[in-house]
């Protein structure tokens, strides 16, 4: 066990050296963002090497922090390069006219069935798909309200766990539904916020 850990650590350190060296060498800023994301994965690898349940709990916040930093500097990059124009529609195939509602509904339904974090991701993909096909007018007020409610549910579940632990199952259900809403809401924002009119 101990040796395996040391071996894994060495492999990751080697990758870190390679990754950082590449970052130093790279001149193009866009490529540097991508390389940074690759380097970020090494942090996750380091956490994953712990190889216990706790590691799983630590990876999630690490991942969230990494993604949010990546999004922040990508936005900075876009503004700096003046790339604020709406992208024109790249893809237009028949299925995007006929199927979005039913496919999105199916995905959201399946997501609700799964519930929790992965359910949120599936449902979020459904919403993204719908937005890609149908276009969107940045109706973010709705999502803000939704995430607010999800957060309140989350806190309520927390209080149930702390104050009346015998109703834990109820708490789990509330928390699962809340994280579903939250993750779905957040996922659906990906790629849709381009500084348009907020209706």
């Amino acid at each position, binding site marked *: 066990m101990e040796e395996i850990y040391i071996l894994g650590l060495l492999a990751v350190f080697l990758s870190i050296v390679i990754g950082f060296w590449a970052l130093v060498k790279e001149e193009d800023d866009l490529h540097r963002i991508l390389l940074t994301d690759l380097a*970020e994965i090494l*942090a996750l690898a380091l*956490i994953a090497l*712990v190889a216990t349940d706790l590691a799983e709990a630590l990876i999630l916040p690490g991942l969230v922090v990494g993604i949010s930093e990546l999004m922040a*500097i990508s936005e*900075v990059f876009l503004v700096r390069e003046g790339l604020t124009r709406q992208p024109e529609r790249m893809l237009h195939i028949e299925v995007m006219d006929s199927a979005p509602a039913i496919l999105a509904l199916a995905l959201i339904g399946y997501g609700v069935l799964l519930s929790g974090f992965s359910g949120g991701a599936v449902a979020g993909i459904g919403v993204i798909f719908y937005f890609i096909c149908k276009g969107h007018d940045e109706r973010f007020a709705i999502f803000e309200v939704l995430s607010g409610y999800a957060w309140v549910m989350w806190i309520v579940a927390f209080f149930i766990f702390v104050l009346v632990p015998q109703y834990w199952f109820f708490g789990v259900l509330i928390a699962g539904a809340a994280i579903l809403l939250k993750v779905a809401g957040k996922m659906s924002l990906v790629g849709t916020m381009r500084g348009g009119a907020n209706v």
Partner: protein
Amino acid sequence: MFELPVTTIEGPEIFVIEFGDIVNYFTVYTAALFTFALLFTILVIISRPERQVDIAFGGDAFYTKDVTPAQMKFQRFMALACGLATLGAMMSGDVFNFTLFTSMVGITNIGIVAAYKYKHVLNAAFQYGIVAMIATVPLFGSAAIILATTGTLSMWELFGSTIAVPLIAKIFLVLGVMGEGMAPFYVAKAEITRAPGAPYVLMIHVSSLLLFLRVVEIVISM
């Protein structure tokens, strides 16, 4: 119930705040840092931005950039978030929480400067963001190595003499905190300082200096 294992470094413990097995604490040292962070967070709330005067070198001409608080809403919010993250990092009694608060400080620092539309400020923000991002590798890496070798992340355990934290984890922790906004990478920060909005820009320095002071305490105690 909770006794800090070492009091010879940062003075006696004042009180602890318990959240289950996550136990935050204040010693004389961290309480002083906390108070300082709180003071500057309040200053961010109550003070208005300054108006920068620029001079044209070689002549008598000067002009003043007029900035209203309304234009600085986003920076103000980010500076506030940065202050709160700093407060959290000051009282945290858990290495992973500390690293999370540190990276949150990194993100909010990018946010504070990224809102200015001047090319050189944005450029500095971008470079700073890249450094802050790759700094999360040693930052979380150190927490992971500490967890893997000692089996705990609680400072209450780690500060005791029975647990030996590997040197590489300590070095990684310091490197990570430095990358999120400290000394060797200050050239980008010097550019950032040129952006208007002194109370908010100042928060970048407050947070990074306080984080550094805290990490010194953690590393010496471990």
